[in-house]
């Protein structure tokens, strides 16, 4: 939806927002919020607070929809890329190594796919005949999110054996990496594995936000307790 940047304030105190006619149909449900639709391409808000709430809800819905698109794109790419089979090492006999890590034979590697949600968030999927590597760069808005993300992902990476498909060290330029081999695909169901990885990505974002909120909430409570000493 496209929002006009200069809403007109009517003398009666109502706020009028002009928007595209094609977008009007999406917002018909706003009537219960105290908004009504003018003839043409305007939405009239009766109260400023409802207008502000509408804007923030719109922003959140835009973000949620972009996350959905990003995750769907990653899921589809993984479904296409996770066709792995056993392939013994061509360099050393009786050895079986994930070719995506070694990268010695170019004929065994597929083109890497980079999926970017924005400048801060991206996902790199590298595939080979017997293994697949997925690297994620997580969004970090400020310093606090930066240190929380680093701490949390490092915590998980150190305990990588619990996840089986997690790499102990992320690829340079990324925050966390997965390595899926043909053996993992034999032991686990491909769909479940993809579901796990996509769910993991959602959970990481949610957990970082929760951690940040906890730290700020705790700081606020401690600050309150500190200032009480002066009363």
């Amino acid at each position, binding site marked *: 939806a496209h929002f006009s940047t200069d809403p007109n304030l009517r003398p009666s105190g109502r706020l009028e927002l002009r928007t595209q006619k094609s977008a009007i149909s999406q917002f018909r449900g706003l009537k219960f919020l105290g908004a009504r639709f003018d003839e043409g391409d305007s939405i009239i808000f009766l109260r400023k607070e409802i207008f502000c709430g509408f804007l923030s809800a719109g922003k959140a819905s835009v973000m949620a929809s972009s996350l959905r698109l990003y995750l769907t794109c990653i899921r589809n790419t993984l479904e296409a890329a996770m066709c792995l089979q056993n392939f013994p090492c061509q360099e050393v006999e009786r050895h079986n190594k994930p070719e995506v890590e070694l990268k010695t034979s170019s004929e065994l590697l597929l083109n890497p796919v980079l999926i970017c949600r924005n400048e801060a968030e991206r996902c790199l999927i590298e595939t080979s005949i017997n293994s697949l590597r997925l690297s994620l760069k997580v969004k970090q808005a400020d310093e606090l999110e930066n240190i929380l993300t680093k701490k949390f992902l490092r915590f998980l990476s150190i305990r990588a054996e619990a996840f089986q498909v997690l790499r102990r060290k992320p690829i340079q330029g990324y925050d966390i990496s997965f390595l899926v081999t043909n053996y993992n695909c034999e032991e686990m169901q491909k769909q479940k594995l993809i579901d796990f990885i996509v769910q993991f990505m959602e959970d990481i974002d949610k957990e970082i936000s929760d951690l940040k909120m906890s730290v*700020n909430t705790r700081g606020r409570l401690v600050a309150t307790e500190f200032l009480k000493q002066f009363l």
Partner: protein
Amino acid sequence: MNLWWCGAMKGKSSNMPCCFERESPALKQILLKLYHAEKPVEIDHHLYEFGSVEYYVQSSAADPHHSFLSVLTPLLSQGEIPSNGPLSPYTIQMVKDICSESAEVVEPAREGYQLTLKLNFSMIPKSKESEKVVRRIASVQAVIISSQLKEIFRGVDSHGTFQPIKLVYYPREPFYLIRQPQKITAVFPMRFKEHSDVVIATAFFQELMDVGSSAKWAKTPTCTWAPIPPPELRGESIEDLSTNGGFVSFDICSRHVEGKKLEKTVWTLLNFYAFVKNHIKCTRGLIQRRMQKRLESLVEVLHKGAMEEDNKVKRRRGGRYIRKLVSLSKFKTLKRRCSDIVNKIKRLRYRIKIHGFNRFRRRWLTLPKFSSSRGYSRLE
């Protein structure tokens, strides 16, 4: 002579009080023990606490009414290292005020200590107030330390500005008092070893500013945080002003130091560094616990998926697998029954010998071998 260690070793630069209460818990326990003792008790204790504080408690059975308490504590100094010099008359007066009739200052103090008190427990009233009196005596170190700051804050209403006063309580952690018209500003340069501590502390200082600026907390000292030192501190040494956590300032006015609030304000300011470090440590613990919990939930999801898959595979294999199991088990049970019977017979054989039974057993009680590895049958 008993030596009781309480806290970190003496002389370490990272010492800091681990609790924010004024009274020393170990000293309080010993004094209460002396107070409640029915018979005269011989006590000769040396106590060492965080912040290079030393107590010496002495009580003799020959003089049951009197005990001696000696204190050695670093004082707020204006130099680089906290000093252990003599106490000012104001400080001694403050100590006399808290102890009232139950304690008397001994002049001169015991060798190696700054203050010696002669305690008379019989002067403490036998009521609920007795514990309060003992707690006041046990907080003598806090009184000594805070009396210096109280002396400075007494002149908060004076006009004019003075040079910033640098005070050192913890080594390498000085703070400044800047006297201005109608207020004194306490400035704390903040330094942390790790970058994550800096970030957590900065978030805390911003919350402190936000909360302090709200209408509900208008009566508290104004708190500000800045990454650069205030202009009044320009001219101080570079080592003291180079920080990675910025500068936290509190504006102390006369209403914050009148009456009983003076003691609270002074004690809160003295323990500000310790408070911040305690908050950072607890926040790191909170983050660690949440990460551990999240890890368990993520791993559970993965293992749950794997277990569901195992169950589905077992169900899918279905009839043929189960039939195979059933046929195998019938043969096994039959074989087991036969071996049980044979064993029983063998046991019976060892107890009772029956002539001709051996032949009978070999002929009728052995199982026929359908596939013989030898390829022939044994002749009897």
